[in-house]
């Protein structure tokens, strides 16, 4: 196993270097020159080129950049010189994660649940309707869907705000920074999730359905009241509510745009797993239908979905340019768009290569985890 991991890491490193070279070649194949727009004469332009290292031959630039990159230095931005690229990226990354990470996880949960349901009731009108709805939202044009959501829920019904991360009037003289509040909210969410899982685990043994449901509902109410009390004692709940209300509309839009794909993959995987022998055994044992569905089919069918999640997760760092534009969210997608507009090569290379590194790490982790998740997969024969 260790030998396999070492080999995989070495290969990922070679891939990373190749990827960097490809990125560098792609971007420098274009006639990008940030100094061409200067209005202060050719001597100033030469000075700029010398400052930014653009007068060097391309090979020297490449090896310089690669050497710096291997020391975890992404260089200096052209657009707001001399800010380091890593600072620019990290200043926006919490916004990206807040919206796109939570939206991706929600979309996957929703997609897995719906896919499970429609695979089990195959051929009915429910399946037809859910499939049509999922496909329609998945294939709808992102800016248009965003505007429709804003128009309905933001403008006509006036339920939710639809611009920016926070309302400046609410945050005037706020006692905390946004980032610390976000961290607090994430911790709260994790605690709530853990408590809910504990309640579910504890109520698992109750054999009557209505007792189980009642105890779960009671647990949820107790958790909710506890968290509400904690937040209202801290006196920051109005800020958290402000962030959550701003988050709702973009989150809903991203979830609507992306859950259909997961749903269809989950459905296909469920239908493929349904004919396995162990499902027949489970039926022969006389297990209830829901138990077969949830524990015998869905748990095995979830593997391709998890693969897809792991492969897609690094790319949420790129964000979604459209959603950020429509909802004025100003996360990493906006950085990329600005970098393209202002020909800010270091920022572009920095973000794309960070995505590459994360994706490679995800690939390695996936390969390692797969051997534990699915004992049928063995790499000895393949490698």
């Amino acid at each position, binding site marked *: 196993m260790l030998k396999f991991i070492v080999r995989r890491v070495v290969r990922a490193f070679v891939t990373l270097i190749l990827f960097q070279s490809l990125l560098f070649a792609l971007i420098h194949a274009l006639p990008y020159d940030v100094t061409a727009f200067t209005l202060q004469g050719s001597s100033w332009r030469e000075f700029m080129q010398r400052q930014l290292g653009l007068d060097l031959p391309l090979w020297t630039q490449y090896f310089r950049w690669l050497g710096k990159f291997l020391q975890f230095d992404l260089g200096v931005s052209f657009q707001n010189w001399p800010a380091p690229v890593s600072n620019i990226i990290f200043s926006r990354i919490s916004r990206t994660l807040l919206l796109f990470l939570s939206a991706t996880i929600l979309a996957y949960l929703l997609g897995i649940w719906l896919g499970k349901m429609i695979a089990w009731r195959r051929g009915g009108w429910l399946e037809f309707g859910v499939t049509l709805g999922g496909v329609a939202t998945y294939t709808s044009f992102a800016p248009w869907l965003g505007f429709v959501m804003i*128009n309905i829920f933001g403008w006509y019904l006036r339920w939710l705000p639809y611009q920016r991360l926070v309302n400046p009037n609410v945050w005037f003289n706020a006692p905390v920074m946004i980032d610390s509040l976000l961290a607090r909210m994430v911790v709260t969410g994790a605690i709530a999730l853990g408590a809910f899982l504990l309640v579910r685990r504890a109520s698992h043994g109750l054999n009557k359905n209505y007792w189980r449901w009642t105890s779960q509902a009671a647990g949820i109410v107790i958790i909710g009241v506890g968290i509400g009390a904690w937040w209202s004692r801290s006196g920051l709940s109005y800020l958290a509510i402000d962030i959550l209300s701003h988050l709702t509309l973009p989150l809903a839009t991203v979830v609507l745009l992306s859950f259909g794909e997961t749903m269809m993959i989950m459905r296909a995987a469920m239908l493929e797993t349904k004919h396995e022998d162990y499902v027949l055994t489970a039926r022969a044992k006389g297990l209830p239908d829901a138990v077969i569905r949830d524990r015998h089919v869905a748990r095995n069918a979830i593997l391709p979905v998890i693969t897809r999640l792991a492969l897609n997760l690094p790319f949420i760092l790129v964000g979604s340019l459209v959603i950020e534009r429509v909802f004025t969210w100003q996360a990493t997608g906006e950085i990329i768009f600005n970098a393209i507009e202002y020909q800010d090569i270091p920022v572009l290379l920095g973000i794309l290569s960070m995505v590459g590194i994360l994706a490679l790490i995800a690939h390695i982790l996936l390969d390692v985890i797969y051997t534990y998740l699915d004992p049928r997969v063995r790499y000895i024969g393949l490698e």
Partner: protein
Amino acid sequence: MTTMPQQGSNASTREKLRTYLLHRWVHRRWFYNNWELFIQQPHGKLGLIMIVIFGLMALSHPILMETVWNRTLFDPSIGFDISIMPHPTTPTWRHLLGTDNFGRDVFSQLLAGTQTSFSVGIVAAIIAVTISTLLGGAAGYLGGVVDAILMGISDVFVLLPAQIVLLIFGLLLRLEWPMVAIAYGVVTGLGGQAIVVKSHTLKIKAKPFIEAAQAAGGGGGHIIRKHILPGLLSLTIVHAVFTVVGAVLTESLLSYFGRTQYYLSWGTMIWIGQQTFRWFTLEGQWHVILPPAIAIMLFCSAFYLVGRALDEVLNPQLRVR
């Protein structure tokens, strides 16, 4: 006497025709069976009908331009109706979907945009599927050095987000639709699809019927043609459909951001409509924005539904019977 050979040749032609038709029937039975399975599914039927309608829309545009529509009034990019004065007009009988703020007929633009979407989607799908099947199949079947090199390339390309690459290109290059289609097809085909095809080829290669074919004396070409490629067919079709959807959405996005150098596209229509549109009051150009947006949705949904239905027919593990 002169008629005899003619009659004889006639009879033999009829005989030949009958044998030919019989052979055809035997071979086509596969097609008809699958067709019946396909058409039984409501999704597949719905998607196919929508694709046919879009195809008719794309074909009808040049015909309408030649016959019914006056070119100076109804041309999708330079037409201008001088008889109507305040120019974004709502739908009338003369202009079925109204006009935009440059005085151009929206219905004509919609039909012309269908051509762009079809071209982009189909070219991208063909390129992606060809690349992924050839390279992934070769890597899986041949193994060894070929596998290492091809999968090395795929591992690099899977890290590239296609939309951002195209946005970067679109800033300074004049992007035409073939370039968008080719770039999207190459990035997706070389990236994720080739890896999936390779792992699927490995699965097929390990099946007993390959060994049986080899034992029966089947050569490499025979095995690839008769066993590997049919096994990859369902995956190929699913990939093609996903590529069509992705390419059309990417193309619309690029032209929505004004990164493309051609006019006739649904994304450009939405972009132009939005210049003077007040969303919150639905005043102004709803008739410019809604048709292309809904068209994009229906077009991609149609391909998606057809792909799903085909997958259900061709993938033996999903089959209904």
